[in-house]
């Protein structure tokens, strides 16, 4: 193989903020004082917070050094399954930082914020077209917040029909957020297991579905990277008992322009703009989790909603059946701008192409690595594929060891130990923005690691060795928590 990506370089140590600095420094240009001081009653004022005092150079070096200890999509391939770490286009950042957007107060009169409202209105239309759903709310802040919104909508729907249902069906392959979102409002998640092909079977759902069950939460494509082939039949079973189908749309990157979820029996679904629509993940957010619904759930959507009349846009609270509000204001507006820009830059043909290439890349990885790693479900996959460490067990090498060793080769590891149905899972999602050369290099790295597993397992057990730190003691961190300095 070519020279591996991973290398060592000069990385600088940097203390904690409050371990540096000196009284008398400041990195902020204090605004001019043009009014007299008017001291507040002493009883109301405190000492002021104990913040360190640093100069601008101190601050800039501090964060520049910290950033160099991080790995992002801009650094290299980040094949984190289920997270869709595709490239984040730079023009999106530029658009979101336009002064008219960043400076806008959320409670401006509608006449003074037409551009923002129009952008939101059009983004809703675009997302409705891509998903085949009837109406959208952009308010949820992230995927799990979208799930929570979906559960509230389902709850409100059943309540409007005069029924209180207590259960919801959640497959064993679901993200942890699914059962947690359902349970937050008192729904009891009822697990359903997938079959030998990694699919939900209509029979298994029929057995559990009854008139005390509010619906089902399905991830499609599912967390094994497989398209739920029986989705229509399952939806019919759920609907026949008066239930609703919630689709976790975290994996829509596989099917843009290929499947419209609204046409497969789905009633409500969240999208993750920070996955499918290229907005950066920011080391853990902010995200945006719009929720798409069919007509019969539209009256329950959160308020305010963006409405249009004769080319003028406004925010309307006039939806008496609405579930209410999920955030104080209108959601992650700054993130929406980036997703809107992405859709405009791509156009309809390239969105479809993106899904096709995402699926091509995943299948290519699957074919190339299946002789190296155990592949529990050997069938065509969608945007991601799931391996396991079964073949390395004899060498006493685990998924964790291989993941850590990948870092030394210059790659972010895949998602590991998820989905839970695969023991020692290794979930690879290359995304469409990785070129064939990058993927070949990743494949070569994984093959080299598998060889090392057989020959010198210690290299893997001691990995990573090229990062800022070695493996960290997570047990002590949890047992004796130190959460602030």
């Amino acid at each position, binding site marked *: 193989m070519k020279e591996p990506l991973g290398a060592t370089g000069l990385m600088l140590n940097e203390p904690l903020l409050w371990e540096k600095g000196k009284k008398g420094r400041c990195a902020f240009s204090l605004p001019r004082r043009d009014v007299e001081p008017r001291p507040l009653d002493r009883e109301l004022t405190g000492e002021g917070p104990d*913040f360190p005092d640093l100069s601008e150079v101190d601050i800039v070096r501090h964060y520049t050094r910290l950033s160099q200890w991080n790995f992002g*999509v801009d650094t290299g391939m*980040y094949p*984190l399954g289920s997270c869709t770490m595709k490239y984040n286009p730079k023009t999106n950042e530029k658009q979101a930082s336009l002064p008219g957007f960043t400076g806008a*107060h959320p409670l401006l009169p509608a006449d003074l*914020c037409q551009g923002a409202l129009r952008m939101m209105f059009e983004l809703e239309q675009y997302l409705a077209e891509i998903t085949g759903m009837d109406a959208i709310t952009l308010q949820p802040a992230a995927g799990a917040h979208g799930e929570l919104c979906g559960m509230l909508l389902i709850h409100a729907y059943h309540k409007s029909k005069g029924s209180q249902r207590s259960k919801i069906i959640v497959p064993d392959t679901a993200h942890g957020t699914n059962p947690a979102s359902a349970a937050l409002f008192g729904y009891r998640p009822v697990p359903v297991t997938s079959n030998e092909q990694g699919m939900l079977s209509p029979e298994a759902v029929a057995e559990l579905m009854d008139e005390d069950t509010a619906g089902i939460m399905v991830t499609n494509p599912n967390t094994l990277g497989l398209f739920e082939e029986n989705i229509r039949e399952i939806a019919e079973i759920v609907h026949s008992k008066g239930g609703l189908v919630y689709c976790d749309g975290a994996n829509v990157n596989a099917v843009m322009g290929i499947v419209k979820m609204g046409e497969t029996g789905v009633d409500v679904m969240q999208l993750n703009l920070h996955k499918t629509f290229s907005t950066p993940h920011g080391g853990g957010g902010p995200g945006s989790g719009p929720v798409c619904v069919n007509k019969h759930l539209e009256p329950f959507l959160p308020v305010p909603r963006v409405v249009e009349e004769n080319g003028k846009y406004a925010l309307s609270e006039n939806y008496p059946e609405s579930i209410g509000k999920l955030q104080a204001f209108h959601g992650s507006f*700054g993130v929406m701008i980036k997703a809107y820009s992405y859709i405009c830059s791509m*156009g*309809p043909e390239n969105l479809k192409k993106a899904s096709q290439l995402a699926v091509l890349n995943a299948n290519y990885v699957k074919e190339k690595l299946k002789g190296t790693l155990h592949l529990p479900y050997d069938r065509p996959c969608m945007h991601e594929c799931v391996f396991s460490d079964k073949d390395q067990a004899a060498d006493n090498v685990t998924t964790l060891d291989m993941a850590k060793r990948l870092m030394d080769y210059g790659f972010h590891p895949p998602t590991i130990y998820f989905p839970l149905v695969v023991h020692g899972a290794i979930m690879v999602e290359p995304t469409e923005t990785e070129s064939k050369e990058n993927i070949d290099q990743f494949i070569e790295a994984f093959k080299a690691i598998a060889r090392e597993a057989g020959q010198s397992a210690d290299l893997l057990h001691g990995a990573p060795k090229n990062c800022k730190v070695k493996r960290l003691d*997570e047990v002590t961190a949890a047992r004796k928590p130190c959460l602030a300095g």
Partner: protein
Amino acid sequence: MLYLPHTSEDIASMLQVVGVADLDDLFATVPEDCRFKGDLNLPEQLTEWELNDRMAAFSNTMAVSPEYKVFIGAGSYEHFIPASVSYLLGRSEFVTSYTPYQPEMSQGTLQAIYEYQTLAARLVGMEVATASHYDGATALAESLLMAIRVTRRRRVAVSSLIHPLYRQVVRTYFKPTSYEVVELGYLENGLTDLAATDGMDDLAAVAIQSPNFFGCIENLQAAGEKAHDRQALFVASFTEALSYGLLNPPGSQGADIVCGEGQSLGIPCSFGGPALGVLASRKKHMRSLPGRLVGQTKDLDGKRGFVLTLATREQHIRRQKATSNICTNNSLCALAAAMYMASVGGAGIRELAGLNHDKAEYLKSELKKAGFKIPFGAPTFNEFVVEFPEGFKATYKRLLEKKIVAGLPLASYYPELANHCLLCVTEVMSKEDMDKLVREVKS
């Protein structure tokens, strides 16, 4: 296409490896009746330059400073943000990384969030702060649910002077549950009527915002005593984080949980989002906290490092028994806040908060001199309520034409307050801007 690197040669050779004839065949496992056969009805692709034009056109319709003088706060505040903060926040190693599941490759994010947790906790006077929540409103809803978990009680008392939109979010979260929200009224001086909690039983929490929605500084110590009298937790909420540069932090006034909005700390208004939910508590409640936490630990060589910790509270381990469903939070906003707090520093934040207060006092006194009524007598920070004469609507409209937004009319939130406006002054407003506002409303 810029973001799709595959050449037709690449595609052909990859298809061959996969063993299918063309890109459509990759989807053979998708049943026929699930396939969309048409073309997506979306606008034609834009070039980078066309996109610039379209977005600039949208942006140009927005009423923002310096062209407009917007005297609205109410949960979203315009403050100066140093260029160094925006610049550092744009470092793509921070921006384009995921949640730090692999700590060895994410020490930058992890140390920065650990520092944020520390500075946020110091700001509000608490021992522990989470890695971030979506916004102040969801942080309040999660805090109340946390209080219910800790106390195993079912009822929360919420001040009617907590931001009305925050209370709507709380109601939305609570609607499908069997938990009860009781609202506490307000007194003539613009403070919460704490006596209303007397005799309330089964209380999990008493929640007060300070400065409250009218801008008035609440007596947190008294509120804490009332809460503790009823064996409830005292939840202190806030919308203007900068106020704690000057005011007693809630932690010093007996708060058990502090929650609120951190947008003032280096995050632009951005039409309301993304924002920063701050949530902090006493150490004894840390295992009941919702959301992510970063903790300090050591690596194999004994070197200091940081990891996500106490994950057994969280959804990916605990599933339906988790303390919250939160996964993606607002990490980059927390990073901005940490950069901002470090830049302003201890001395700077006090001076800056003082300036906010003094400017708002100036406008208040000028409006009073001009004959307008300040209905609530309690001390305020950088916001206050003004009662304008009957028919103020027309004046408000006239001012909009002069590019002045004269505060937030309160009637739609508090119907009893017709002709009342909530005005906000931060350091970005000059004396001249304020004098102009007073001149214009008088004329």
